[in-house]
């Protein structure tokens, strides 16, 4: 029963993280910089969805779709105002990364200014969970796992079964060569921003639906999202999904593990129970990240 619950909890966490890590890794793949404001874009969308559903009374799914579209346009707008100009004058990716940190701080405070720092919740009733093999899961959590899975499938189809996907992969591999083949790289970059931001909104909204919504949420989930993207191999969308899965399972499994079978050394000692202190939960992810990077510095799925 406990194992099933751990699997369910991990899948929920992975579904939320992977959509966010996917957007982050897309931006890195094409523009070669880590966008520190990515989770705040997601949060902007989550707040917009909240306002559409609360103030305008729109159904939540419609609110999320509109918010994802608007945030996608916002991502394009920020690129046009900031990153494109800097790219044009030849600014290095590391500088773009620092600019994105500034955008993160500014956006976080704008969110606070508009929506205040009070904790908000979506109009979703807290209901008794369903029981599956002795473990519990709510309808919302089932929907989160389903939406997460379908979004990843849709992304895979987009990337591998469409001309658009081919063009996107082409500019990721070699932008100059892609441009020589008449691919409008700036147009593709705009689309990339739109998709990355919109996917982020779906992930961010799912986190806020399952938990709570507040302006600092984006900053608070930044580290696990980065961790997932780097673990899988930043720049590789499938790596982002794998990284999110590993991270989610690590957080849940390690805390549930009882190491007495290991440390009792076959009966030499008689520890009743040895479990990792829950205060070290955040360290678990980083330990795994460090170990993976030691043996595979590019991450699990990224080629050298």
């Amino acid at each position, binding site marked *: 029963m*406990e194992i099933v*619950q*751990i699997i369910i*909890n991990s899948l*929920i*966490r992975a579904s939320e993280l992977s959509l966010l890590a996917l957007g982050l890794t897309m931006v890195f793949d094409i523009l070669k910089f880590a966008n520190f404001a990515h989770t705040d874009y997601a949060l902007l969308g989550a707040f917009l969805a909240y306002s559409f559903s609360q103030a305008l009374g729109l159904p939540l799914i419609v609110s999320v779709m509109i918010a994802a579209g608007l945030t996608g346009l916002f991502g394009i707008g920020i690129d046009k105002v900031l990153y494109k100009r800097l790219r044009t004058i030849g600014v290095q990716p590391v500088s773009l990364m620092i600019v994105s940190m500034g955008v993160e701080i500014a956006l976080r405070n704008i969110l*606070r200014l508009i929506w205040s*720092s*009070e*904790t908000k*919740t979506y109009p979703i009733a*807290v209901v*008794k*969970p369903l029981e599956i093999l002795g473990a*519990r899961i*709510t309808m919302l*959590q089932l929907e989160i796992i389903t939406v997460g899975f379908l979004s990843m499938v849709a992304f895979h189809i987009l990337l591998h079964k469409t001309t658009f996907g081919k063009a996107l992969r082409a500019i990721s591999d070699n932008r100059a060569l892609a441009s020589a083949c008449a691919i409008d790289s700036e147009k593709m970059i705009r689309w990339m921003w739109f998709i990355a931001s919109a996917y982020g909104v779906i992930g961010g909204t799912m*986190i806020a639906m399952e*938990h*709570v919504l*507040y*302006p*600092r*949420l984006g900053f*608070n*989930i930044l580290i696990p999202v980065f961790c997932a993207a780097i673990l899988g191999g930043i720049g590789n969308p499938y790596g982002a999904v794998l990284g999110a899965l590993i991270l989610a399972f690590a*957080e*849940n499994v390690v*805390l*549930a593990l009882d190491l007495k079978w290991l440390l009792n050394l076959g009966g030499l000692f008689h520890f009743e*129970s040895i*479990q990792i*202190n*829950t*205060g070290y*939960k*955040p360290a678990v992810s980083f330990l795994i990240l460090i170990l993976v990077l030691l043996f595979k510095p590019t991450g699990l799925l990224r080629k050298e």
Partner: protein
Amino acid sequence: MRKIAFIIAIAFVLSLVIGLNPTEAKEPVKIGILCPITGTQAVMSEDLLTGFKLAQEEINDAGGILGRPVKLIVEDTETRPAAGMDAARKLIEVDKVKIISGGFSSGVALPIAKYCQEHKILAVFQPPTSPLFRHVGSYIFLTNVLDNYKGKVIADFAVQDSGKTRFATMFMNNAFGKALMDETLKNLQKNGAQVVSKVVYELNKVDYKAELQRLFSKKPEAIIATFYAKEGLVTAKQAYEMGMLDVNKVPWYVPEMTSSFASAIKKIPNVLEGIKGLNPLPPGALFMEKFKKKMGREPITAYAAMNYDALVMIAMAANFANSVDPTKVRDALWKIDDWYRGQSTGGDKRFDKDGMQGYGKYAKVIIRNGKIVPYKK
């Protein structure tokens, strides 16, 4: 020219005689206020600030401090130690305040207390409750009761009320959580109870399912747990969804009920039904009346009254000392506390030799029909 100089000299001497300095006659006494306007405890900031403002209005109406009005300079701690330190440094270094109050949460206020002590800045904090404040130094005062008492009271209450012996505990990983956990565990053992699972959690996370799973992994018969508002909301929701909030099977006891569920009780009150715990004693009738008049509602937390008491006591001590020098005000605090009847923690605001509140009285409460109400078995 000589005539003008003579007139100025006479005016200066006269002003000294009647106790008025011409340059400082209306210069306000600045008092720095540290408040969690944003962050995990932001939900209480309106109440906390109202407590200060009510006291400020009363003090100024009564002539202020040494005839000077009180000016509050409010800074946001974001309920985070680093942001709290930045706010305190700004108050001390830029605004040049000599007296600080507020501070919300031990984890935030403890490093600030050390900084204040080093700089001889008088700090009257509330509601921090960590016993670690006792050892910081002579410039640090608390108007809330220390966790030594709370840990004992919650452990006694939980064991006697539930009749259970297998407990699991869940506390946040900061100065407040650590101190309260230590005292609670010690007193659970004294009561003959066994602690089968101890969970320490990080603040500002969005997922506490793994921690909850651990909390229930050894089949406890009862839970003692405390939160801040945001974590309380997330954890209560997740515990309910994981079937862990059935208080008829496994009762929950919460040492800081309002502080833990200030957000949850607004958003998901039905989930919290039957949770028992402690709260500071309710504010005095006088404060309640003033608060209701100003805000049109009752305060959600008794901490508002502690802030009121803190500012009133600072003003009384300064007037008593005939000075706003922090050392003199500090010494006077030990003199006026005997006869000041406060509006918080039952009214007794006497400080012990370390500037701490020496008495621990709490209200036993339960959540019924979405409200925190007094509990009697």
